[in-house]
């Protein structure tokens, strides 16, 4: 039932919104993960980001894909919580009061162990429109623990203009999305974060050069 509702939501709301209202150009679609499991890492400027990333996949795969979202934002108000869990499949994680029992990595790890895939925004917040902040270390911990799962870097542009942080009125702009080659990272946390950020900067350069 939940899957049906989600598919209907994507078919009737998300797809028309992204295709007709906004117009999302996808670059390097060949890099889209065909393997069952992946960790997608993207920059974050807008609520549209998670929609655009999930929309890359066929409806039949959506129930295995979870955007990781801040519990203090998405899991407080019961309506927003129900909406985002039902339609967007989010995994809420804590950003504050982190302890052994309240560990953000725990739930992400469980999902990966169950064979599901994650969409992670390592900047940790949407931040200033169209600016990329430095990555938080949590994602590196996770990649260290699951070195066999491919990491797919994705760079998004334009969503932060269409629906920036603190704004609920959508203004259409053409948006771009570029998918990088899958990475398999290992080593120290700093090295993993370094190679992720390098991949993101490389994607941004490629995008700037092609448009």
């Amino acid at each position: 039932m939940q899957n049906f509702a989600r598919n209907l939501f994507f078919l009737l709301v998300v797809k028309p919104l992204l295709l007709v209202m906004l117009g999302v150009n996808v670059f390097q679609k060949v890099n889209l993960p065909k393997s069952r499991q992946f960790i997608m890492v993207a920059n974050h400027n807008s609520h549209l980001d998670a929609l655009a990333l999930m929309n890359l996949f066929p409806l039949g795969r959506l129930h295995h894909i979870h955007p990781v979202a801040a519990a203090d934002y998405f899991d407080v108000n019961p309506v927003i919580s129900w909406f985002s869990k039902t339609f967007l499949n989010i995994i809420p994680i804590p950003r504050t009061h982190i302890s052994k029992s309240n560990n953000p990595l725990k739930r992400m790890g469980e999902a990966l162990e169950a064979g599901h895939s994650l969409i992670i925004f390592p900047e940790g917040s949407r931040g200033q429109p169209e600016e990329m902040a430095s990555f938080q270390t949590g994602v590196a911990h996770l990649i260290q623990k699951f070195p066999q799962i491919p990491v797919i870097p994705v760079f998004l542009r334009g969503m932060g203009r269409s629906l920036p942080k603190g704004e609920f009125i959508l203004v259409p702009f053409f948006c771009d999305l570029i998918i990088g080659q899958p990475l398999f990272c290992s080593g120290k946390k700093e090295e993993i974060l370094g190679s992720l950020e390098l991949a993101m900067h490389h994607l941004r350069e490629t995008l700037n050069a092609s448009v």
Partner: protein
Amino acid sequence: MERLLNGFYTASPVIQMGVIIFALLTIASVVIRLMAQLKPNQDFKELFQRIRSWWIMASFFWLSMAIHPQASILLFAFMSFLALKEYFTLIHTRIEDHRVLFWAFLAVPIQYWWVHIHWKAVFLIFMPVYMFLFIPARLLITGKTQGIVESMAKIHWGLMAFVFCLSHLAFLMTMPAIPAIPGGGKALVLYLVFLTEINDVAQYIWGKLFGRRPIAPTISPKKTCAGFYGGVITTTLVALLLRFLTGFSLEMAFFSGLIISLSGFLGDLVISAIKRDVGVKDSSQLIPGHGGILDRIDSLTYTAPLFFHFVSYLFYPAPH
């Protein structure tokens, strides 16, 4: 053969134009295929894409005309929306202008609503007067004066070019059939759009074949004098050839050709200048082989209002 020709002459302008457009596209496709076979080491990918996109655009345009005038008004409104979106995506806008841009987008359906109810007086002043006054007033709410003149100018310019000017196509569509123009608005729109596009294509082909001297080197280095003159002559000749569509006299067809080819060239250059200013070659990659929607409708922003006034003045004096 004679019966076929007779049938062609007595058919409606939509059918006549459909035959012409799709015959030309078929010839172009065949010629490019042959050229690709004759010169196998030359890259024809862009030309193939270009012609493919022409097929798609022409089909949308022609089908909307064939289905219902309202369908093509909707199509023109959607074109305005896409063009405005592409323009706002290209230029820099302030974060504070977010909701002002929202209002600008809202003006698209309103402008086309005036077309739909055929209210010419308001259609003509809504953008140049009311939106002109509204945008700066709404910008005041942002409370930020730094860059406000730029925002006023940029937003209103986009509305004028891509909504106001383009919507003249839609209004032309609603013009009634009169004895002098038996085909009415449909025939006029077909004539205008076909000539505008032929002018673009003719400029491109003449420029490729004989172009040497750039005509506006700092704005668009690829446009040449030969392309410009070739375009004007070709378009004027085609305007004379196709005058059976509208029922124009020889002089009227001649002036239509001149107006469309000269102003179409200007519209093309204006958009080129904007692209140069923001530092892109194509306005986007929406239309394979052509670039963005602005690259395709640039000439129409100039030809549509000018041809509209030319026709209005001669055939549709007030109150129509």
